[in-house]
């Protein structure tokens, strides 16, 4: 459909959540804003392919997600390097409790596999239904559900000791406990 005033306003209204999604995916504010800018340019260039009445945020999120993934593949080395410097900035943060907890959460989120991280963010933070999230990621609804579950389980394990009970290391722990008993 053509770019009407109301469609333009709707696109602008999606910018805050697109940024939040981009930052959650990339863990880097500058890169996230570049990603959002590219998403907007791509969306406006292809606005004719947007179906009126369909889910505009989901359409925009799909574009951003695909850009991020192609970008990620291209710049894998750079990303790894950026992660290193990001980890360093974390260590120089003041050790205020809530702030520390927040940064720990961020760091844990970064450790999730990309598939799981994006599924968790789309469902748990952006508020998309499992169906919309599946459409955005181009996979089955059941796949999204299992990715979200695995993401939650892994975050629990990373952040809270109690969450580790659903995890692989169980076997090792049992072996150690069993071994020390004899």
């Amino acid at each position, binding site marked *: 459909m053509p770019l009407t005033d109301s469609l*333009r306003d709707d696109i602008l209204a999606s910018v805050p959540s697109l940024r939040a999604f981009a930052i959650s995916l990339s863990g880097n504010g500058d890169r996230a804003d570049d990603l959002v800018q590219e998403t907007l340019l791509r969306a406006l260039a292809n606005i004719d392919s947007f179906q009126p009445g369909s889910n505009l945020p989901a359409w925009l999120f799909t574009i951003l997600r695909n850009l991020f993934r192609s970008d990620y593949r291209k710049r894998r080395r750079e990303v790894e390097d950026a992660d290193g410097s990001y980890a360093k900035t974390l260590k120089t943060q003041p050790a205020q409790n809530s702030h520390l907890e927040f940064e720990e959460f961020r760091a844990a*989120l970064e450790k999730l596999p990309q598939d799981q991280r994006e599924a968790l963010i789309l469902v748990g933070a952006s508020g998309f239904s499992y169906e919309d999230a599946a459409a955005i990621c181009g996979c089955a609804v059941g796949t999204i559900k299992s990715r979200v579950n695995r993401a*939650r389980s892994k975050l629990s394990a990373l952040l809270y000791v109690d969450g580790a009970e659903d995890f692989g290391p169980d076997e090792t722990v049992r072996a150690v406990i069993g071994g020390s008993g004899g």
Partner: protein
Amino acid sequence: MKDVKSQASKSAAPGKQGGLNAEIQSRIGHQLRAMYDDVVRQGVPDRFAELIRKLDVAKPDPQLEDTGDQTNKNDGRD
């Protein structure tokens, strides 16, 4: 060993259904939304408002030339 495991989950999530600890899950959900909403609350940076305004102005008026669009058909693929 089974006893140890069930005790741990009982003490961590009293009265909740099986699987992941409900209290931990609600904390994770809360932190995830807090992190996300923190960015959402920043609104639309000028950079993006300007970008869309500029593109809007740059768009040719379809009433003046009805073949203008055909020359620039690029879906953005490499």
